[in-house]
């Protein structure tokens, strides 16, 4: 019972404290911030921050908001809506004194105040607020705030914030006059894998004429070692990133090329409109997205589930219509097929321009595909790319199953291997051709659906993939999936690694040059068919 009474009393006291914001700041410091010389002001800000009193934040905020007045050059008041509070004690002041002056808040003081405010927010219970505070603190941190930072660091549990905070702490300490403090800072940095660390350390090793920025040789040596460690950690992060983006690009190429592997690789139809079938899939996704937004906003996050089949079937239908109306008349005449399908691609592009306008349309990621998962510092795998990698694998598996395990696949292989014989034993070759072309086109549509999630959707979408996807098929060799898969992943990886080394355009040129040379050695691609099949 007794304890309960005490608790109640304490609660009451806390309640009173909250309703009557009373605090006790050293009045001379408060006055110095509001009315001192510029140097005094900044120094006083730092001292107030170090005190850690609850009133400091309110006071600084009021200063920044222009709500502080100095009464008679002695007493600092926070005036809001004609109600005044003493900035030092938090007591109400009534009535308002007559002789009020505005304090001088110049840019230097403003910067110091903002830095201080961030430092104070370091103790906030909200993770996002603390993170923002650390970021805001950045360069504004001053030596006087070190105790506060140390305190926050001791209490901090979040690894990301800890890291940034350590960096801030070290950058302040590196400016210290004491070589031992600087040494400790450099040592602390060795654990960091933040790219900014590198800049910080490089700054130490800079020379101005004969003098180093860092006067102490031992600290310099330590900094060099630390730099090496940080650099190696950073470059391994870079490499992981490259592998991921390479696999991601490879999966996109794979999707774009898988359809081509059927229509070109198996059927031997060179379809220059393949890119436009990808584009149609992307526009199909766009339409489904709009439909969901208009009719079922609650289900918007799941529109992709409907968009995937929609993209497949829209492209497949267009593809089958093309096969029936144009392409089947040109079997066995590849060069003519090339020209005719190029004409088809022009018409499809212009149709889309007429229907949807020449501008790109917006396709949004569902919530569950936006953002990313952070593997380690500086290594973020965006969800949309990760999902597409999985999607490409799924499509690949499905296609393999279709070709190797179903009746349609069997017929398709039979027709491509020996059309006449297949026809003799009763395979409806014409229908198989149409279905196979539809399948290849539908897979192009799936690629379009995936592409809409990571890039722009416009009438020219397909044009940028057609050369790449043909390269994949040419490199992989005609007639099988394994070659296509290896070629797509290989090209994706090679592209990204070369890009990091030489820039995007040169990387692309190098790849094309490589393919041209490669074709010299192995004209039939990576996985050439052997024996009589090769002379198809």
């Amino acid at each position, binding site marked *: 019972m007794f304890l309960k009474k005490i608790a109640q009393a304490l609660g009451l006291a806390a309640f009173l404290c909250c309703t009557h914001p009373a605090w006790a700041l050293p009045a001379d410091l408060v006055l110095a911030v509001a009315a001192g010389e510029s140097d005094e002001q900044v120094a006083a800000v730092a001292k107030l921050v170090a005190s850690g009193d609850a009133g400091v934040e309110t006071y600084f905020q009021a200063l920044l908001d222009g709500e502080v007045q100095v009464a008679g050059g002695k007493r600092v008041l926070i005036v809001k809506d004609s109600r005044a509070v003493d900035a030092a004690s938090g007591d109400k002041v009534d009535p308002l004194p007559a002789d009020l002056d505005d304090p001088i808040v110049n840019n230097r003081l403003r910067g110091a105040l903002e830095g201080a405010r961030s430092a104070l927010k370091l103790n906030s219970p909200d993770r996002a607020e603390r993170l923002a505070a650390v970021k805001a603190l950045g360069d504004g941190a001053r030596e006087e705030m070190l105790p506060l930072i140390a305190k926050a660091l001791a209490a901090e549990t979040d690894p990301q914030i800890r890291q940034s905070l350590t960096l801030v702490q070290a950058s302040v300490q590196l400016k210290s006059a004491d070589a031992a403090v600087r040494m400790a800072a450099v040592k602390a940095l060795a654990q960091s894998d933040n790219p900014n660390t590198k800049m910080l350390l490089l700054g130490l090793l800079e020379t101005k004429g004969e003098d180093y920025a860092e006067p102490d040789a031992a600290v310099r040596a330590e900094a060099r070692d630390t730099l090496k460690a940080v650099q190696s950690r950073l470059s391994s992060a870079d490499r992981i990133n490259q592998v991921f983006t390479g696999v991601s690009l490879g999966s996109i190429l794979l999707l774009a090329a898988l359809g081509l592997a059927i229509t070109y690789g198996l059927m031997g139809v060179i379809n220059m409109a393949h890119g436009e079938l990808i584009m149609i899939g992307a526009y199909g996704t766009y339409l489904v997205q709009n439909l969901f937004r208009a009719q079922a906003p609650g289900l918007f996050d799941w529109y992709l589930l409907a968009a995937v089949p929609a993209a497949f079937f829209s492209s497949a239908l267009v593809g089958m219509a093309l096969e029936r109306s144009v392409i089947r008349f040109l079997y066995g005449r590849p*060069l003519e097929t090339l020209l005719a399908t190029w004409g*088809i691609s022009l*018409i499809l592009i212009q149709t889309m321009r007429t229907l949807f306008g020449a501008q790109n349309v917006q396709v949004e990621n569902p919530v569950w595909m936006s953002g990313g998962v952070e593997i380690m510092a500086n290594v973020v795998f965006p969800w949309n790319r990760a999902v597409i990698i999985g999607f490409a694998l799924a499509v690949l598996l499905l296609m393999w199953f279709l070709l190797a395990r179903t009746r349609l696949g069997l017929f398709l292989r039979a027709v491509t291997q020996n059309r006449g014989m297949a026809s003799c034993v009763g395979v409806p070759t014409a229908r198989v051709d149409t279905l196979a072309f539809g399948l290849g086109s539908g897979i192009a549509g799936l690629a379009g659906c995936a592409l809409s999630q990571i890039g722009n959707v416009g009438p020219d979408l397909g044009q940028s993939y057609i050369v790449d996807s043909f390269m994949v098929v040419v490199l992989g060799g005609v007639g099988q999936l394994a070659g296509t898969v290896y070629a797509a992943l290989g090209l994706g990886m090679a592209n990204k690694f070369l890009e990091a080394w030489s820039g995007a*355009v040169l990387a*692309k040129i190098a790849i094309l040059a490589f393919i*041209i040379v490669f074709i*010299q050695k192995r*004209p039939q691609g990576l996985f050439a068919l052997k024996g009589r099949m090769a002379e198809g």
Partner: protein
Amino acid sequence: MGPLASGIGKLYGVRGWVALGACAVILFLLFPLANLALPKGSLFYISDYTIALTGKIMCYAIVAVAMDLIWGYTGILSLGHGLFFALGGYAMGMYLMRMIGREGQYQSDLPDFMVFLNWKAYPWYWSFTDHFWYAALLVVLVPGLLAFVFGFFAFRSRIKGVYFSIITQALTFAFMLLFFRNDTGFGGNNGFTDFKRILGFPIATSETRMALMVATGAALILTLLFARAIVASKLGRVLTAIRDAESRVMFSGYNPVHYKLFIWTASAVICGIAGALYVPQVGIINPSEMSPANSIEIAIWVAVGGRGSLVGAILGAGLVNGAKSLLTVAFPEYWLFFLGLLFILVTLFLPQGVIGLLKSSREKRA
């Protein structure tokens, strides 16, 4: 008459020579008179625009003849002829850029785009390009050399058919990307433009335009005769044989690689010359000339006119580009529909092109 002259005389029949002569008279006599001598209001006056357009289309016609040699006669569909055309154009463009002198925006010895990149001197591959004849040499050498090297490797490893087409397209695409880079030293995506003079003459006057048009016409006629000489010769018969049955040509003891390489390189050189004539007339060259779409369009000129007929190629280039300059002004949004349909219909229904149509109608009458 020497053997050479009599040989040339045999290239065409009497009617052929008369038609060619008539064309020459129209191009070299009537056009200049109608444009330069007649007053602007006259009924027979031909505007500068028409002259420029004629010159431009004749450049395309030269390319079409080159394309016909390699595709119509030898059966190799190149999707890289736009590249050779553009390379010739760039070589000429380098000379024209040097001739701007200090009249650029920054009044520097260097072209504006180099000033913009903060370059202090011309890169090595720009040296001597201020001499016209050196630039003219480049016009021939650069496309020729590239075609020779590329063709050597491609034909030697027996890349043919669609494979070859796709690889040439990739080559063109790669070069386009390369020329889009600012650091390549060819003006990035703006390319070369704002030319001032050629061989000391101001480039934008009616007289210079007329001279360029006449030069293009002469080049076209020479190209036609050269191509005719090739296809009428034994060499031409081997080329046609390669198109129709390459293995059989090999088994008969010919090495197709040499023949293909020769015609491929010659075709590229002709394209380069056409490009060099094209650039001073349109006043601009940029990497979009190398876009794969342009190269494929060349194929459709030849297909429309009629493959395996040199006059047909010229006719096709004229028809398609004439239609293009009419349609892109009148109905710009329908041009791609028209072009696309042209690709489809010609391949499906007109394998011999317009020339084939004319021939069969003449045979029906006879």
